[in-house]
């Protein structure tokens, strides 16, 4: 059998599609910009100087490679599979987001763009973008839903310290999807000097593929590190999914390793039921077109987009990257959902057993690890992406646990 024909790593096609998902559903004003970006990215992709610059910054600015850590007490506690955490929360700025931002900003500089715009939910992508813009002296404007500005105050202040302008978005319901709408509106207005730095593997082609390629460093490192630690591939890899960039980054280098079980964990909010109080696009949505791509979306019967609901602002998006939709439909990856309550429990256990305060996003992945690990044999290797640290979430967690905490504490 020729494995080339069976590779899961060849997408997207020339129209930016992963199967029927993806594409370029944008207004004509943006279309020429997206074609320019695609051409520039295609050039950069095969340019060793581009990757040399990335490697240098990844090493000296971000602190890569991030460790692959054997979570011994967690493993012992669960009494089953051997659990490894890919420590992307140790990156500069505290999450995986900067892996991608560096790539896009280097690209923006190559294209001569001087003004960077970004959308952010939890604020991690906004902070990463503000950080890299500060480093390169670029003007940075971050669109953030007014609701998220309220619940992620520490990150808003960080962005301001870093010199970014944070624009609270009140249109629609003031969440991540509305922030993305307003970023697109900015881009359509400021086409000549502006680069739109998208934070996840969604949006029009080439963003889903480009962001995946920048985040794939996570999976490449994990594969090497696991080989070094255990002499073989992991049996299961797990990551949390909002838009899905940390997950795609971990998954991509393993897609053709057929023995590796791949699991994406969506935010189940209060539970995936008919009340739609969740953000589980794959388990609770259906295919539609939004923000430049066809993918699974939370929507009503008339094709109107619904708001997601999650304790984690970073997962609070009604869509998901198109490559995940494709992996879901062809069955190469499995997608599950975890509720707010389950994530909170995992958050606390991680703090207590491992001395790691995880972000609420990877707490969802961890909650699923806690579900499956006890029933797996001790030689079963799990690699979970600890994609962000939880400092930003302590106020939310305190509130959810019914604890009082003065913000000056």
């Amino acid at each position: 059998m020729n494995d080339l024909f069976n590779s899961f790593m060849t997408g997207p096609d020339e129209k930016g599609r992963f199967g029927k998902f993806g594409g370029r559903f944008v207004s004509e004003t943006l279309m020429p910009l997206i074609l320019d970006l695609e051409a520039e990215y295609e050039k950069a992709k095969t340019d060793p100087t581009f990757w040399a610059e990335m490697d240098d910054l990844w090493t000296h600015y971000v602190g890569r490679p991030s460790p692959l850590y054997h979570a011994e007490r967690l493993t012992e506690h669960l009494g089953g599979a051997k659990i490894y955490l890919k420590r992307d929360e140790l990156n500069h700025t505290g999450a995986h987001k900067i892996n991608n931002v560096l790539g896009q900003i280097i690209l923006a500089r190559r294209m001569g763009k001087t003004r960077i715009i970004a959308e952010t939910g939890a604020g991690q992508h906004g902070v990463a973008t503000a950080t890299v813009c500060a480093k390169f002296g670029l003007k940075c404007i971050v669109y953030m839903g007014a609701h998220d500005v309220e619940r992620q105050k520490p990150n808003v202040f960080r962005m301001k310290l870093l010199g970014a302008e944070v624009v609270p978005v009140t249109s629609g319901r003031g969440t991540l999807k509305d922030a993305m709408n307003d970023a697109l509106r900015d881009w359509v207005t400021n086409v000549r000097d502006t680069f739109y730095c998208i934070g996840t593997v969604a949006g029009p082609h080439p963003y889903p593929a480009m962001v995946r390629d920048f985040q794939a460093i996570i999976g490449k490192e994990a594969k090497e590190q696991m080989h070094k630690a255990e002499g073989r591939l992991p049996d299961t890899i797990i990551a949390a999914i909002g838009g899905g960039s940390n997950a795609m980054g971990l998954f991509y280098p393993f897609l053709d390793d057929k023995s590796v079980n791949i699991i994406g964990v969506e935010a189940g909010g209060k539970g995936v039921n008919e009340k739609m109080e969740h953000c589980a696009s794959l388990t609770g949505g259906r295919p539609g077109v939004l923000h430049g791509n066809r993918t699974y979306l939370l929507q009503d019967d008339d094709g109107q987009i619904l708001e997601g609901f999650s304790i984690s602002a970073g997962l609070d998006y009604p869509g998901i990257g198109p490559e995940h939709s494709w992996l879901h439909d062809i069955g190469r990856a499995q997608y599950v959902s975890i509720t707010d309550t389950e994530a909170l429990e995992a958050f606390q256990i991680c703090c207590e057993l491992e001395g790691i305060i995880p972000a609420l996003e990877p707490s969802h992945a961890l909650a699923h690890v806690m579900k499956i690990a006890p029933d797996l044999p001790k030689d079963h290797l799990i690699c979970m992406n600890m994609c962000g640290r939880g400092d930003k979430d302590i106020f939310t967690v305190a509130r959810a646990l019914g604890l009082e905490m003065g913000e000056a504490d």
Partner: protein
Amino acid sequence: MSRIDAKFAELQAAGKKAFVAYVMAGDPDYDTALEIVQGMPGAGVDIIELGLPFTDPMADGPTIQLAGQRALETGMTLERTLDVARAFRKTDDTTPIVLMGYYNPIYSRGVDKFLEDAKEAGIDGLIIVDLPPEEDEELCIPAQAAGLNFIRLATPTTDDKRLPTVLQNTSGFVYYVSITGITGAAEAQAVDVAPEVARIKAKTDLPVIVGFGIKTPDHAKNIASVADGAVVGSAIVERIGKGDSAADVLAFVKSLADGAHSA
């Protein structure tokens, strides 16, 4: 010959420029929106652009976004939007109606079913903002096959190299977006628009209508004088949003139509 083609033939014979007016279906409510639409031909509107409400109108400014939200809050749907056209067609069989909106509500219904329903409801053309030529197979080509015009937007970023791609499967007319930006934003200047319209007209025989950022009768006149017509949307919707009566809105529409027609 489609109603749109017939309308332009009639305008050309009379030596008149086209006035195109936009209203969001269901804004502020179904009945008022229908009353405005029904009054439009009498106010001098040559082509009606009927907005299909969508939760995430990425290319629209706050005025149209809010109109969409108002409409959705009253329970507006794609089906009710088509009902506006059906009701209008009972008394007017000649004024073209172009449905303007975003792809997802249509995709959600199913393209074939939608085209059948739209045709039956008396819709003549479609302007779907998030379907560029790269996605023509989605709706543009099936729509033309079903006998509906697919009207494409050309923009200041559509350069000479790209223009033929944009024009290739366009029919009815070409909608030139006079600014880079969202609806209702900066004002377009006739002096900037004129060479762009000429650039497009050199490549197509279709009429070129200019929109985005036209707010007053004088402005409509200036822009129409350098094109085949002008579109006004946000300025009309803004008055509806302020709570103006249908009669007041239509009086304003008439002043805009008179402006465009005096070009």
